């Protein structure tokens, strides 16, 4: 082995803690990119393949009742590749041993032919025998939640009549990846499931023999979705069509999309910033580290090594560190990425997972860190190689210092150690500022990932404690007169009840159109309330329509503007309504009206779609028992259970992702501060040893170095907060989908935690440096020049 290579190895061994700290910073940067991009890529790919294999439909429409023959006509629409008609209805279930009322979407399986679209992925058992009225296949998550096995049975109220069913199989479907019950914010596999049964049996139960209530269409590749939707609407209107819609408005797809978008936002915002921060820090650290090699570089030149050979030597030195970092990062990133993909895969109940780890991402991640470290090294080497060897071998001339504000110093007479620290920091403003920025950035990535916990809590608070405060929502099978509210109030345990009216509409402004439900509410609600932008409950405007801020933003309207509302029920009129209020909320696109006004819009008397209720928790079980037997209710949403589900799923998923990012941010923060402290020690080691000889105690000399570290760490905090806030704002922006928005709320504790973690890293680094100071060889200082 050549002597220079041996030097390389020995140097690495000698500096292993610092080299490892730098490698870990790089690893953290690399890992975040690989894990973020990898897990999102894998999930998006899995979904695409699942949709493809199981022929997930492109356009969907619900009707009251349309003859089966219409399917042929629909198939003739230009651009339509395949048509599937079916019966699908929501019904209340009665499951032995389950107190809360649960519901299921009953979906028909074609009679005596294969499914054409939304193919079931059978997980166990078999399909029902054609025409059998009792045999059903249920969705696998629902079966698992109830520990159902093949042969288990349950009851349900179909069209007002209680029936008993026997499970013969479990399945998954691309249509119900995200199985969300009406009025629920979160999938709850205990309380909402999918039940597939033979078409004649289900049609019979709902008086739909020879007819269908829902149609799904697969489009040709070059088809125009909008044209097909328009043609479908024309055909289905007279059969009570509620308006055809594309995947964007399909519940499961839309929510899945929002989730993937959030994951993507995290992978597109945080990892590149982590990577850049890591690269910057590595660049800065290695450049300082190599500046310390000045004498050795001079020596190498003196004995005849060329600048090129020396440059290569130090590039090799940093490449070893960079490669170790990149390899650790790639391994950890892949491992975390696969883990995260599995976690989300389980949550979505994908029947299979495709791991797609793009080699390009590895190249980018490793390339950026390696390049940054090499640039840092080259810069330092170039500075030294340019000097004549004789100059390089001697220590640099004593640095020129200036007395800043001598009056102030003589007035305050600060301790000389303070003067030393402050002058030292001011002497190299670029280095000081870059260290400051480095520490601030490590604080910023902590703040930028920690804030999401609080934001989710805030979202929960606004959604469940300030806006929708009801314990439960009862959704009627079909609209009922207002007097039905009295029946609800008379149910056992119901303390209060507020009616609502739900009107499916298309809302339009200019050329922007969205399919939403306008919810009619009484003017003075107390349970389900609407909030203004300061999150204060406001009175529902008596006229016009109130839009959620997200919807208003999409439609580009403000209070006072007109929006066109197209009814998807009754006479399908189009009316222009003034926007009379903008409402705050983080989930979904919402539109509200006064309930009297809503009924007037439909030209109906006082009708209600359901009721929000407050429940006496002591009589809850009794209420649930009665509700299960109530033929007029199709679905009962339990807000408390929703909240619990929300915490268990979204909050948990976000927590895991954020915890990973926070851990990596801690690695980066520690690596930076530790290296700063170590390099400062190397740079000032001689000075510090001299002071020890003069009789300064270990604590006193440590104080000089550590006060520099402390000053930088403290000064970096406010900058870190500002940068962290910007990072959070960037995430909110990337996070925003039509279904979810993240509130940009950073509670003081987020800043405090971020700072505490950075300060803790500084303290630990300080202790390590302190130990080094204790081990300084004093005699060496007297003997050597520098």
């Amino acid at each position: 082995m050549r002597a220079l290579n041996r030097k390389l190895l020995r140097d690495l061994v000698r500096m292993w803690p610092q080299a490892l700290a730098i490698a870990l910073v790089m690893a953290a940067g690399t890992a975040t990119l690989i894990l973020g991009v990898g897990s999102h890529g894998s999930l998006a790919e899995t979904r695409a393949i699942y949709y493809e294999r199981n022929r997930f439909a492109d356009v969907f429409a619900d009707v009251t009742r349309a003859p089966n023959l219409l399917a042929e006509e629909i198939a003739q629409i230009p651009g339509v590749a395949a048509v599937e008609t079916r019966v699908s209805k929501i019904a209340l279930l009665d499951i032995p041993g389950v107190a809360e009322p649960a519901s299921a979407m009953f979906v028909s399986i074609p009679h005596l032919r294969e499914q054409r679209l939304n193919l079931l992925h059978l997980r166990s058992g078999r399909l029902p025998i054609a025409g059998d009225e009792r045999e059903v296949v249920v969705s696998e998550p629902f079966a698992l939640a109830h520990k159902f096995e093949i042969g288990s049975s349950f009851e349900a109220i179909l069209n007002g009549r209680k029936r008993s069913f026997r499970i013969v199989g479990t399945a998954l479907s691309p249509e119900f990846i995200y199985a969300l019950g009406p009025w629920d914010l979160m999938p709850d596999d205990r309380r909402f499931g999918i039940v597939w049964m033979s078409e004649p049996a289900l049609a019979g139960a709902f008086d739909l023999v020879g007819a269908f209530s829902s149609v799904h269409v697969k489009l040709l590749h070059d088809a125009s979705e909008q044209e097909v939707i328009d043609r479908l609407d024309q055909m289905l209107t007279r059969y009570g069509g509620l308006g055809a819609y594309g995947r964007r408005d399909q519940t499961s797809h839309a929510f899945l999309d929002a989730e993937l978008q959030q994951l993507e936002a995290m992978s597109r915002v945080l990892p590149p910033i982590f990577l850049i921060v890591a690269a910057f820090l590595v660049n800065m650290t290695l450049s300082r580290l190599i500046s310390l090699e000045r004498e050795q570089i001079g020596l190498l030149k003196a004995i005849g090594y060329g600048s090129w050979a020396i440059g290569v030597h130090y590039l090799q030195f940093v490449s070893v560190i960079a490669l170790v970092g990149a390899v650790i990062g790639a391994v950890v990133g892949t491992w975390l990425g696969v883990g995260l993909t599995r976690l989300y895969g389980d949550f979505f109940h994908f029947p299979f997972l495709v791991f797609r780890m793009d080699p390009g991402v590895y190249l980018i991640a490793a390339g950026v860190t390696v390049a940054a470290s090499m640039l840092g090294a080259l810069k330092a080497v170039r500075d030294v190689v340019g000097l004549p060897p004789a100059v390089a071998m001697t220590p640099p001339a004593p640095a020129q210092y200036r007395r800043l504000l001598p009056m102030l110093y003589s007035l305050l007479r600060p301790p000389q150690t303070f003067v030393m620290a402050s002058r030292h920091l001011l002497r190299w403003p670029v280095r000081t500022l870059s260290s400051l920025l480095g520490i601030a950035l490590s604080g910023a990535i902590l703040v930028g990932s920690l804030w999401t916990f609080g934001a989710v809590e805030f979202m929960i608070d606004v959604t469940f404690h300030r806006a929708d405060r009801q314990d439960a929502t009862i959704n009627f099978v079909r609209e009922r007169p207002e007097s039905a509210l009295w029946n609800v109030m008379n149910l056992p345990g119901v303390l209060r009840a507020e009616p609502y009216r739900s009107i499916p509409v298309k809302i339009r402004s200019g050329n922007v159109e969205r399919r939403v439900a306008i919810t009619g509410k009484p003017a003075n609600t107390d349970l389900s309330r609407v909030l203004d932008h300061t999150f204060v409950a406001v009175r529902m405007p008596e006229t016009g329509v109130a839009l959620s801020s997200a919807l208003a933003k999409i439609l580009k309207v403000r209070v006072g503007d007109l929006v066109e509302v197209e009814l998807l029920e009754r006479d399908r009129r189009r009316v222009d309504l003034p926007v009379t209020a903008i409402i705050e909320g983080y989930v979904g696109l919402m539109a509200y009206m006064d309930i009297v006004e809503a009924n007037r819009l439909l030209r109906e008397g006082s009708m209600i779609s359901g009721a929000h209720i407050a429940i006496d928790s002591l009589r809850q079980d009794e209420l649930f028992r009665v509700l299960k037997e109530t033929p007029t209710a199709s679905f009962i949403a339990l807000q408390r259970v929703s909240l619990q589900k929300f915490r268990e799923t979204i909050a948990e998923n976000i927590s895991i992702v954020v915890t990973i990012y926070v851990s990596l941010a801690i690695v980066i923060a520690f690596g930076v501060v530790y290296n700063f402290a170590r390099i400062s020690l190397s740079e000032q080691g001689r000075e510090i040893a001299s002071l020890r000889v003069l009789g300064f105690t270990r604590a006193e000399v440590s104080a000089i170095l550590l006060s520099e570290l402390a000053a930088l760490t403290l000064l970096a905090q406010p900058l870190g907060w500002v940068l962290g806030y910007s990072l959070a704002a960037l995430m909110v922006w990337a996070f925003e989908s039509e279904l979810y928005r993240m509130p940009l709320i950073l509670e003081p504790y987020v800043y405090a935690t971020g700072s505490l973690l950075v300060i803790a890293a500084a303290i630990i680094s300080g202790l390590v440096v302190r130990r080094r100071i204790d081990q300084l060889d004093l005699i060496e200082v007297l003997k050597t020049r520098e």
Partner: protein
Amino acid sequence: MAEITFRTRNLTKTYISGAVEVHALRGVDFEAEAGEFLVILGPSGSGKSTFLNIVGGLDLPTSGEVWFQDRELSQMGERELTLYRRDHVGFVFQFYNLVPSLTARENVALVTDIARKPMRPEEALEIVGLAPRMDHFPAQLSGGEQQRVAIARAIAKRPEVLLCDEPTGALDSKTGILVLDALLKVNIEIGATTLVITHNVAIQEIAHRVIQFADGRIASTHEIADRKPATAIHW
């Protein structure tokens, strides 16, 4: 009889350097009286620096005793040695070892801040003749001036002993003489026992006594009957 500042008995120091044992000191018996000005001569590796480090409280002997006044340095712990250096010893190094970020006055204040009964930094700089340049940083001072700042820093605490390792080693003859003059002056004014290590034989003429080190032992000691002022020597 004058008070004894230093006394060593059978002092040895052995370094283990890899597989090799280096016997830096092989039994040194030595005494120095209060206020004495001693010059220690000897070739490289003769053990003079090791000796100075041990009496200065920077290192511990392998065996033997070393006493400062009535205290045995060889029995002291790290903390006590630090306090010993802080309160009683002034060091002057070959390469000055000034703090570059502090002015001359502040470098001296560094020591007076922690000493028990120090003189004012200005006073110490006055003694070495640097009062006019006390607000200059090391980078703005010549080598000789920097060394005189180092001396001022060493004497500002009014030490009982002043230990100088090659104080003129990095200086030309003219500047070196100025530094030696300053050392003699403080030896008289504050009465510190002064030990000066040097390669430079010419310097011996300013001492009370000259100790010759060779091969880890004191080879010879002789008194200088006819002491000269610093200005009278040259090299």
